[in-house]
């Protein structure tokens, strides 16, 4: 079976993100970019399924500027077999991405799409669900465990207050949570081998999708600065301050 893994290029999780001075977004010029960590987990899960003999081919897909090819290359170094880059300078939002992924799924006919539950840049947590809806497929989101048997997937989901296990009929979309696995390192020999794996580059128009954004960002602002803590002398003083200053009780 084929697995399709969408991977997003985002600001590296180690970077201290700065809001642009004009409030239109966050600064990405000269900033280190990496694969969305949840997508790394998705790639790892796909590679493990291939190593177990469940999957036969892993296709990594990324959408966005030309440098998204590097993100695909990272997935190839981890063990994906080939890549598809949908190259566009457009500001991509979840619905447009889901629509383009749907066309790619129709074309590639994977049995499973494994992807991050959300990207750490905009934290939308929407694309996987939208894709499942557009395809009419089952979905198992926030997966912390995935088991495939025959035409069924058993997915353990991390939900508020506990774990929920769902049985899905394949084909299905699975979105990954943090505890699903620990992504492997790309070994240097595999990094070198990845250079020779194929990446197909196409445009949104080739998929018949207009990626123009439907949502408008009005303003991006820094969260308020954390105030310095205060030491209190007694419980009574604490309660008083919680009432009069913090106004939480």
């Amino acid at each position, binding site marked *: 079976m084929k697995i399709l893994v969408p991977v997003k290029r985002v600001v590296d999780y180690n970077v201290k993100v700065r809001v642009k001075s004009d409030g239109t977004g966050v600064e990405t010029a000269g900033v280190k970019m990496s694969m969305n960590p949840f997508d790394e987990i998705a790639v790892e899960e796909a590679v493990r399924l291939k190593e177990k003999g469940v999957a036969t081919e892993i296709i990594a897909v990324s959408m966005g500027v030309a440098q998204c090819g*590097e993100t695909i*290359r990272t997935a190839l170094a981890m063990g994906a077999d080939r890549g598809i880059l949908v190259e566009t300078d457009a500001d991509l939002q979840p619905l447009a991405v889901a629509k383009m992924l749907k066309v790619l799924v129709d074309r590639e006919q994977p049995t499973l799409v494994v992807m991050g539950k959300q990207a750490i840049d905009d934290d939308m947590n929407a694309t996987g669900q939208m894709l499942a809806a557009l395809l009419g497929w089952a979905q198992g989101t926030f997966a912390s465990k995935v088991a495939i048997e025959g035409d069924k997937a058993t997915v353990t989901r991390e939900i508020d207050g506990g774990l929920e296990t769902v049985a899905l009929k394949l084909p299905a979309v699975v979105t990954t949570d943090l505890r699903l696995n620990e992504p492997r*390192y790309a070994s240097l020999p595999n990094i070198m081998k990845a250079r020779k794996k194929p990446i197909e580059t196409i445009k949104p128009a080739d998929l018949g999708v207009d990626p123009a954004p439907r949502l408008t960002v009005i303003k991006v602002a820094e969260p308020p600065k954390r105030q310095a803590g205060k030491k209190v002398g007694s419980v009574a003083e604490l309660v008083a301050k919680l009432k009069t200053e913090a106004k939480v009780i």
Partner: protein
Amino acid sequence: MDTVEPVAREAPACLDHPAFRPEHVMLRDQLRRFVETEIKPVAAAWENKGSVPREVLRRMGALGFLGIRYEEAHGGAALDTLATAILAEELGRSTYGGFAITVLVHTDMASPHLANGGTEAQRARWMPGIIAGEIITAVAVTEPDAGSDVAGMRTSARRDGDDYLLNGTKMYITNGVLADLVFVAARTDPQAKGSRGISIFAVERGTPGFSVGRALDKQGWRSSDTAELVFDDCRVAAANRLGAENRGFYAIMRNFQNERIVLGAQAMGEAQAMIALALDWVRQRRAFGATLWEKQAIRQRLAMLSARVAAARQLVYHAAWLDSLGHDCTLQVSQVKALCGELVNEVAYACQQFHGGMGYLRESAIERMVRDARVQSIGGGATEVMLEEVAKRLG
């Protein structure tokens, strides 16, 4: 009016240096993650123990970090000097100089003698184990009375049938205790003057007559083992001689170039880590009603140090790039070693100063890094020796 079309430029793989390719960037990413997650949380114990666990080296071998430039047939990646510089820089950023040098002596100071000077049979015998991290290597050139001045070497190798008999003492040998295979320089022609008449031998641990005199106690690089090695009628098969007899000096000189690029890169990795540590500290440490960061005297000194480190780092990359193209870059490499060895100490001094009392405590990373930095202007070609190499080439 005609407009001039801008020259089309290919986007660089990253903004550090135009010669970096995507595989360099990916290697750096993997190394950084490895150092952050597998080294920094646990390496403090290695400082006390005095050595790096072998399983760490095997793990690095499995990830291909120990065979960056070696042939693919033996498990290497056949990459270039720029990739080596990235390795050294990222290991330097670990804040554990002793860990970094344990690896770098193996990959870039010892094993190149075999990779460059060994026959196909010799390479096939040892290189796969070296690249996998199963066979750890050391290089033994320095003696109690001969360091950068190789010509003063006294250790001898006397031909005896199909063997050589090695006699002498080697000093300051990094990985001397840990190593399974030591590349030993010895005089094969006692009549030859100066640097002539030296050959290199691969000597395996356990060879009769080869022993570790003592483990040496150092100011810094505590997690790196350093030893005195003793050869007492140590019988080594002629098949273990690397390269032509009496030509060892040239192999040593060639290898010094690589070693010095690596040490420069390691030093600049350390310098970057120290500036980052100092930044974290001064942004939260308060004195006289404000954070230290709010004092111009401090933040401007940090700013200037960051500029000097950025410049030195580019010189490291430049030398590595020239080397990767096969150009002679003795001038640039000597400049790198002299500059970076001194600069890392200036950065260390200033960053410890900015840490105040905390920087004097053994529990702070900067305290360790100050001790580790000191050797960077001494080992692998002291600043004074390097400056003479530079001066000679100023024309």
